[in-house]
């Protein structure tokens, strides 16, 4: 993509986040999500570099079980999903009622029962679907909830102040309205992260963690190899260690979009057994993530992030360097 193309892409993203999505999110849901799907289709059609990355990742990781026709269809749906997630964020206004009425929560009783134990609860998920907005809904429904996760624009060296400010305004601020505590952000040098999470759990709060996060270079010695999406992946079993040290139960949570694109279902599992060695216990979490992604592959954010697929060990190389704009994908994956 040439320089002009990149500029155009950035302008479209800024316009979508700042104007189009906030406005359409106030209109009837069928229209708003229809616009989002249309925008996703246009991005799929005209953003050829990102489309190539998504298709490449899908072929390499799930190609054997999907087939070429399905790969193309799923790739288009990836773009639709990413676009719809922006509408979800915009519908978190107020006490999140506009989004709440579109999301059915299943298994809430498991979470309530876990919290009755008094040691908090860990919601383990993946970068899958509108997970960030779904967590916001849970907090808005009365659960004290804090998220462990990195907001990339805070850490990427050389990122301009304008970009940081932009994502803080359009994204982070909306999220933090529906959190008990500030985001807990793991990053080299921030050794207090797990202890901060433990403090929240000690207060009988809910802490969320996405266990499919690509490990940083400094974390590689702590990863373990696990079967994931038909490959061996390098993942961090931090959720298991946190659960064992705090006694908090781990529940899996995945939100997936229904075929009409506007309704979603958030499913919360019963507590995952944490017995056995770390690899065994963590393997149960990974199996759940694997199942959710295979059931609805278009909703996994990492198809947009070939570097993360490579860091996980799922892709030999990203092949398609980031010659295209990084803004859209990164912002949506949080």
């Amino acid at each position, binding site marked *: 993509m040439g320089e002009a193309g990149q500029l155009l892409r950035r302008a479209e993203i800024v316009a979508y986040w700042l104007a189009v999505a906030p406005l359409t999110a106030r209109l009837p849901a069928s229209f708003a999500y229809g616009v989002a799907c249309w925008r996703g289709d246009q991005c799929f059609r005209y953003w050829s570099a990102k489309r190539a990355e998504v298709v490449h990742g899908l072929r390499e990781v799930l190609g054997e079980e999907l087939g070429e026709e399905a790969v193309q269809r799923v790739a288009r749906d990836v773009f639709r999903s990413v676009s719809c997630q922006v509408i979800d964020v915009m519908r978190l206004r107020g006490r999140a009622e506009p989004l709440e009425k579109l999301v059915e929560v299943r298994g809430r009783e498991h979470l309530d029962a876990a919290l009755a134990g008094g040691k908090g609860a860990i919601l383990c998920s993946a970068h899958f679907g509108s997970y960030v907005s779904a967590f916001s809904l849970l907090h808005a429904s009365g659960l004290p909830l804090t998220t462990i996760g990195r907001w990339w624009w805070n850490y990427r060296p050389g990122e301009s102040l304008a970009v940081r400010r932009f994502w803080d305004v359009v994204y982070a601020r909306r999220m933090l309205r529906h959190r008990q505590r500030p985001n807990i952000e*793991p990053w080299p*040098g*921030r*050794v*207090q*992260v*797990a*202890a*901060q*999470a*433990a*403090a929240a759990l*000690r207060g009988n709060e809910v802490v969320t963690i996405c266990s499919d996060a690509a490990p940083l270079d400094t974390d590689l010695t*702590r990863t373990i190899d696990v079967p994931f999406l038909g490959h061996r992946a390098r993942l961090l079993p*931090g959720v298991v*260690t*946190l659960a064992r*040290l*705090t006694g908090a139960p781990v529940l899996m949570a995945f939100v997936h979009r229904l075929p009409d694109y506007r309704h979603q279902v958030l499913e919360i599992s019963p507590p995952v057994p944490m017995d056995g060695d770390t690899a065994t216990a963590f393997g149960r979490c990974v199996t759940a993530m694997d199942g959710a992604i295979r059931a609805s592959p278009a909703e996994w954010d990492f198809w947009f992030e070939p570097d993360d697929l490579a860091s996980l060990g799922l892709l030999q190389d990203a092949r398609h360097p980031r010659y295209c704009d990084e803004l859209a994908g990164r912002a949506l994956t949080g």
Partner: protein
Amino acid sequence: MPLLSRCCPGHDANRVTGKRGAGTELEAVINDFISRELVQDRALLPLGNTTSLLDTGVLDSLSLLRLVVFIQERFGIVVDDVDLVPENFDTVNVICACLRSWDGKASGRAGGHG
């Protein structure tokens, strides 16, 4: 009575709280736990009380949590969120100084209510 002393039965309270001599009892307990449970690189052993646990990579996020849990279970001291900063856990000596400070605050609060 300070929590540190109550959790180290039979020990000289003054020695533990550092009011006399070097206060080596507490340092020994903390050093022993870190050496046994957290140090991966055996070349760092024996661990000095002034060795930086952050610069040497002994403490990462999860190992700090293990240390915090140990402190809570062994001494009954719950580390406040505001005290969960890397600077408070840089060396064994720093950790012990903080523990004495936190213990003093906790004892003060307990005394105030009691």
